[in-house]
């Protein structure tokens, strides 16, 4: 494993370009930066995040769960309230809406944790190489 560290984006990107130009395949390069450097993501051809699938699944689950919970509980013991129908969809929509957002957000968070491989016990327990630097790691064969 080869490691290059920099204090600024300029030399970091320069080195990255150089590495790619010299034919190092992107699969063997890993970079760590203190803030997102979009040029580096482009250079490394980082695929578009699959997080949206998690988000969509969560939100859809929340939406359905909201209606399911409200309609099930209203019909399981039908009680009349102020002349309103047992299944009163407008108020139930509010619950469905809130649950859409809640489960959407929670699923996004969980999806993120999974995709970004955090929490990473290894990096919690041991110190991280070149923490806070613009770093390039090249995996050696």
């Amino acid at each position, binding site marked *: 494993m080869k490691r290059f560290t920099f204090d600024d984006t300029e030399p970091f990107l320069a080195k990255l370009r150089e590495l790619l130009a010299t034919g190092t395949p992107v699969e063997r390069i890993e970079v760590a930066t203190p803030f997102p450097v979009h040029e580096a993501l482009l250079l490394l051809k980082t695929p578009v995040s699959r997080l949206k699938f998690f988000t969509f699944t969560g939100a859809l689950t929340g939406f359905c769960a909201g209606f399911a919970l409200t309609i099930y509980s209203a019909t399981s013991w039908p*009680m*009349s*309230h*102020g*002349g*309103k*129908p047992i299944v009163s969809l407008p108020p139930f929509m509010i619950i469905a809406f809130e649950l859409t957002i809640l489960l959407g957000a929670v699923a996004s968070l969980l999806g993120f944790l999974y995709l970004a491989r955090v929490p990473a016990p290894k990096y919690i327990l041991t110190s991280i190489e070149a923490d806070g630097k613009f770093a390039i790691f090249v995996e050696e064969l």
Partner: protein
Amino acid sequence: MNRRDFFRILGASTGAAVATACDQKVASKLVSQLTTPRLLPGEAEFVRSTCRECSAGCGVLAKVRDGRPVKLEGDPDNPVNRGALCMRGQAGLSRLYHPNRLRAPQLRGTTGEFQTISWDEAFAILNGALGKNITGRRHIFLSERTTGSVSGFIEDFCQKRNIERRPELELYSHAALRQANALVFGRHALPVYDVKQADLLITFGADVIETFLNPVQFAQDLAATKLKWIHLEPHLSLTGVNADERLVVRAGSEAWLLAFLAGELGVTAAQAAEQTGLKLSRITELAERLKKAKNPLVIAGGVTTATENGLLAAVLSAVLQEKHHAPLTWADDDRVGSLADVVELEQQLADGKVSVAFFHNTDPVTYRPSFGAVLGKASFRVGFGDMLNPTLAGCDLVLPLSHALEEDGAVKPFGDTQSLAGILQKLGAEARPKQAPVIQPPGDVRKFLANIKPTPVRAGRTLVITPSIRTFDGRGECLPLLSEIPDPLTTVTYGPWVTISEQDAETLSLKDGGIVGFAVGGRSFNLPVRVMPAQPVGVFTVQRPFLNGASLPLTVTGEEISVWPLDAIAVPAVPAVALPFLSGGMHAEGRGIVPGLEHKHEHEHKAEHVNKTLYPPHEYKNYRWAMAIDLDRCTGCGACVAACYVENNIPLVGRDEHVAGREMSWLRIEPFVNDAGDFEMLPMMCQQCDNAPCEPVCPVNATYHNPEGLNAQVYNRCVGTRYCSNNCPYKVRRFNWIDHPVAQPLDLMFNPDVSKRPKGVMEKCTFCVHRIVRAKDHAKDEKRLVHDGEVTTACAQTCPAQAIVFGNILDEQSHVHQQAKSDRTYRVLEELGVEPAVYYLTSRSES
């Protein structure tokens, strides 16, 4: 752990400690009685008795559960009240369970403190005292108004033991009426007026639906007839606002008008107008109507007959009654004397002429403090009563009387008490047959009228002293329920107060609760005021019990004077007090609450006033409980309120909570006044709306619409968000802000069919659902539906005017259905679309 979990744990740990305190105790024992009980468990039996919260003597039925009376209801078979009962009667039950009740004979020891002794000792002491040599002295026996066998026992006891039986003492003895009746009809007694046969009723000062003679009967008869009723009074009373016409006259001037109407004493219409302050045209019109009427009835009483001109007014009214052949029957109360007799007794005591003095359920010391000063001059004083009053507290030997209900075997007695008849029997008295009433030849009315001139009325501010609809002559002051229920017109709960007019309040710069100072009967009073619309200017009304401690001057007939000049009224520089009155406002024009033009419009333009809804209407299977309240009948007397309190275990919260606005009544009477000064009394309870706004806002399903149309409240599910109460347009929901501990043994009065509500829980009128459940249970046994009239609510049951009808509106034959269909019907705040199930009937929106 997120925030919710944290509070779940916190809530659970603190809650566990608190929640345990909230649950009621459940009986943990199951008892095997010796033999099969007379009644099935949970069944009630009814015990007959007589109410003695005023001198009318209504018949009551006590509902007894497990040996404990839990509710009083009017006795339908009693001719006086025919099933109805007033507020005082409803509250009377708590006398049985009163914490202050005497439970054993008390003897004053050498130190001056009372000591408990046994009945045997008590009898020995009594016999000893009566057996002593009494040269120059007499034994006396003073009692309240007694009837029937008790009266016979007293008579026998007095004769056998050589005791002088004093005229019976009632503060409201109506002595002027008695004298007038003796003069005109030859009966020294009070009549029973039959207003049902009259077509015109003119009452002078007689508060016939509050305290006068038998108010329950008056209310029933007045509601049942269509006569025209004109009431004349110097102040503002509930009776006045219920009359068809209320005329305000100057205090003490009534005799002038009566003289003109009777054509006596040469009083002209102009003189009558000048004295009473009425318009001349009004007076001639009145005379005209009296002349035209077929069966007019003129009654003078109350504040009118307790003035300087009172006897004259009473005689003139009796003359008019005789002239118009008013059908009169006579009450059995010839033995009632007046306060003049008390003054005489006071003199005997002062002169040291009294040996053993007996006081039975009476309290002359409160009426005349000077009596208390000489009470000690009797050689031995014996009191009979249920609780200590100032007179009994001044006695040497106090014998606890049992409650009338305890004399029946069905009720477990409290403590070691005995009935008066029983006590007297042990002292050697025997039952006596009823004595025939004394009938004398009538006196010479002409001679009386020839020798009398009415006193002219003086100008200036006047204090009018009235009996209290709640505590009568003050005997109900010890019953907390009567202070909890508001005075009908002023809505003040915990007194004392003086009612003053808006103009007087302005001149004296007073607001509600501001203090006025005045002196009456040798004492000065600083009392808070309640400012009332429609109160006559210059008239200050105070209820008699608030003047306890004063010896009010007496009229010639020996009654306490009810009108007192108030020229020396002062506004002392003391801070105003927080007066607990429950009405937040008395003007409700245009709000659709009391009958008004808006309802007329609704009736005339029915099509425009249909409430549109997106939802299908409710479908009910067998029952839809509903109520109809006839405002033409309702007098606003508050009997229903008292019945509701007792029936539903509603807690009494006291003065401070009332000041804070936290009363608990499920049912209330709302007085509203319009610009013309006409009052409308509106009973208001949960309207059991079809589209109740309270229901959808409850987060925990504690309130919902039940299949029979009731707006149900499940107490132990309630978490106390108070959202339902906020959202109730009628504001009839009540929140338990605190736990309401009940003084022992008053808790035995609780209705076991209704739960006690813990703190933090919302409660409200249920249409007496426990009665409905019971009725349905009986009906189910017979495999039928509940009949109309089989179940009624506590309020409807007790209503003297029978203004409230309760029933199943789906049953087209039912009374409530008929009433609701009537074109006199309107519903309060109907335009909100909440579809209330309480229908109000009125003919007044037309005028």
